[in-house]
């Protein structure tokens, strides 16, 4: 028999209170929320990057290059140990992950193996076959190396993003060698992207007195040198002949800042070495006074000043042809350190602030109008019951938004579409019930009986039907990315709340109405 279940009343009231509790913070702006009293929830619905504007970047760290570097280092280590133990060898070379060497005298192979073993890292294994030694990285070593490289890269990227003044960035590792960077509300994505993507390896070399023209006339470079491009393609000197030996690296830097040079009035980057670096720098500048230093950033010469006097304080300036932004960016890069491996942008999605604002407006408008259309239609079709269903829709939206806030979900444009769609689909459960009640009345049952049976029969159908939609939504959440995930979230929550409103809330209202007012005929 149809009756008002006290527990249901209690349940509905509890849900109402919870919904209001969670929906309140959304009325306020982000900064005002923290000022709310402590007993109130401070959780809000987050706006996705497509609504508030911002950049989403998927980066890939080229960990292979690190393994290649390590393989080359290994070759050096082998050479050193064999020379030290005076063992003759041939065919020394690196592989993708490891190195090979042939020992000339097969009897000395164990000796060679032991001597190499002393000088290499633990994860590198040695295999011998006849007079050949095969050195390779263990699987664990490779995994650790890649993992460390990615972790270090994330640290560097984070420092750079923080220094660029982006608020609330999110930088996370994804899979083995990928990094996801989210930059909400960013104004100049190009600049931040350029900052993130640069390896920023800073090396100090000496310039060879030979000019490029002279080397070209001779047809070869002096031994132990290489050609490097000027980072400023408009400069008078396009290329330099640089000595291969690295004197100092950016790792020894303690600080860097963009300043204006008092004499020239130009922007320069002032840097400061740590103790060890300062000592080395003093020695280099003392030994090479009046020669030219070459400061290379990612293998391009950014500055090639003449050393006028020994610099003992560990401080110096890099004076390229810098704009204020370029000087500032370089300082940021130097402070944050260099990336251990090159980084590639695999995917980028940037939404400008104007589109975000337009999308929010469009979403609001669509929601209100879709809502009105459905509400009017329901009243036309189901009369009094239509009003009950409309009440359910309103409650449904409130519940949906409060649940989104409670889990601090991210609202995206497809997510708003999901809410609007929920308005259309949320009535489904009510429609199922109402149509069933109508049918029962037509077959001659009493009002009370019809309502009771209507809910009883419809409930199974509603559960089955919504469960299948939920399957689709969950798979979408699992496989979807960013905005699509937002759609899956609002759709799933919408399904759950619509079941609650149809099966518990409207049933309560209808029951209450029928029992208290005892209508003789149902206008449905």
């Amino acid at each position, binding site marked *: 028999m149809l009756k008002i279940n006290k527990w249901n009343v209690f349940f509905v009231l509890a849900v109402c209170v919870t919904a209001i509790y969670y929906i309140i913070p959304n009325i306020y702006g982000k900064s005002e929320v923290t000022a709310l009293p402590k007993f109130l929830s401070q959780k809000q619905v987050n706006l996705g990057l497509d609504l508030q504007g911002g950049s989403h970047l998927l980066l890939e760290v080229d960990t292979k290059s690190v393994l290649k570097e390590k393989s080359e280092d290994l070759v050096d280590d082998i050479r050193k140990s064999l020379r030290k133990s005076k063992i003759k060898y041939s065919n020394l070379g690196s592989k993708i992950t490891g190195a090979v060497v042939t020992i000339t005298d097969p009897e000395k192979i164990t000796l060679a193996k032991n001597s190499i073993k002393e000088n290499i890292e633990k994860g590198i294994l040695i295999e011998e076959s006849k007079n050949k030694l095969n050195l390779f990285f263990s699987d664990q070593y490779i995994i650790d190396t890649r993992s460390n490289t990615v972790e270090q890269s994330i640290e560097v990227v984070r420092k750079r993003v923080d220094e660029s003044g982006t608020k609330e960035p999110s930088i996370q590792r994804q899979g083995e060698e990928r990094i996801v960077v989210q930059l909400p509300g960013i104004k100049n994505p190009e600049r931040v992207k350029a900052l993130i993507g640069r390896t920023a390896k800073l090396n100090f070399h000496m310039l060879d007195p030979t000019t490029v023209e002279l080397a070209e006339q001779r047809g070869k470079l002096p031994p132990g040198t290489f050609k490097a491009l000027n980072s400023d393609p408009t400069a008078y000197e396009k290329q330099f002949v640089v000595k291969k030996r690295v004197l100092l690296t950016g790792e020894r830097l303690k600080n860097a800042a963009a300043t204006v040079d008092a004499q020239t009035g130009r922007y320069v980057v002032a840097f400061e070495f740590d103790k060890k670096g300062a000592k080395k720098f003093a020695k280099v500048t003392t030994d090479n006074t009046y020669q030219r230093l070459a400061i290379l950033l990612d293998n391009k010469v950014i500055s090639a000043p003449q050393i006028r006097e020994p610099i003992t304080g560990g401080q110096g300036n890099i004076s390229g042809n810098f704009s204020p932004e370029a000087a500032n960016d370089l300082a940021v890069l130097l402070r944050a350190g260099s990336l251990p491996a090159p980084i590639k942008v695999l995917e980028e999605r940037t*939404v400008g602030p*104007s589109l975000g604002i*337009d999308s929010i407006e*469009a979403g609001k408008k669509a929601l209100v109008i879709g809502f009105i*259309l459905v509400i009017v239609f329901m009243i036309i079709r189901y009369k009094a019951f239509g009003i009950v269903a409309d009440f359910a829709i309103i409650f449904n939206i409130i519940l949906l938004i409060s649940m989104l806030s409670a889990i601090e979900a991210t609202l995206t444009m497809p997510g708003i579409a999901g809410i609007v769609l929920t308005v*259309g689909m949320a009535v489904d459960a009510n429609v199922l019930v109402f*149509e069933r009640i109508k049918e029962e009345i037509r077959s001659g049952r009493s009002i009370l009986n019809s309502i009771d049976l209507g809910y009883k029969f419809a409930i199974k*159908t509603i559960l089955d039907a919504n*469960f299948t939609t939920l399957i689709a939504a969950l798979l979408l959440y699992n496989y979807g990315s960013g*905005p699509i995930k937002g759609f899956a979230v609002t759709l799933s929550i919408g399904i759950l709340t619509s079941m609650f409103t149809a099966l518990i809330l409207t049933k309560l209202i209808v029951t209450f109405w029928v029992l208290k007012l005892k209508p003789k005929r149902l206008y449905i």
Partner: protein
Amino acid sequence: MGLSAFLFLTKNLNLGIDFKGGIMVEAKFSQAPNLAILRDKIDKLQIGNSEIQEFGDSNTILFRLEKIDDSNMTQEQIIQKLKNELDSDTDYRRVEFVGPKVGKELKSIAIKAVLFSLIAMFIYIWFRFSGWQFGLGALVALFHDVLSTMGFFSLTQIEFNLASIAAILTIAGYSINDTVVVFDRIRENLVKTDRELEELLNQSINQTLSRTLMTSITTLLALLALFVFGGEVVKGFVSAMMWGVLIGTYSSIFIASPLILFFGFKKVEEKS
């Protein structure tokens, strides 16, 4: 269904950069640009195949650039080159780049998502209605929906992207929802009446018809509001959804249930 398959096979889907890889830039100009001149400018840049179209209004232009693999320009350089050509007060509303590797991955993810959801729904229905005929009937109907939505994308040449996959899955969920309601009534009637199966199916469909139509109408109303007011970004998604609601309603009435008969479901089976 045949027509959709035909369309799908003959007229290719207009794959978006999500799956194909490439660069997309949505730019709002201060005044409507001349498309022919703009196209000329972009062609001169030699940054690979490009498509230029109006997006929403005549001030907003959508550029789609195919990134050529062998070009040694990075996507940033290409985007910068494009920006240099356009007026300085242009508002860049959207810049998206998807590398070829990610495009391939997204494609396989999309295929997986659709297949898994179809399988999951098939299993659920089979389990809930204790008859593989129900499951298979629903599956064929779903397949029909997915295929005809793809046909819709081929025919209209609406960009097929990640949002389209979301549309397909939602349509699948919506359509199966309809199918389940009809199946549920069939199951109920099987126990209640002694009619012939054919007549019983017919009766069940008729009983649920008004509900099926009602829900379709309210959903379409909500979608219509989104289509008109929801902005250009979701338009493709919404139009596919509208099509899907129509086709999903049709398929659950005319495909899923008759198929139960076709697959040789016997009443005795249910009773035992």
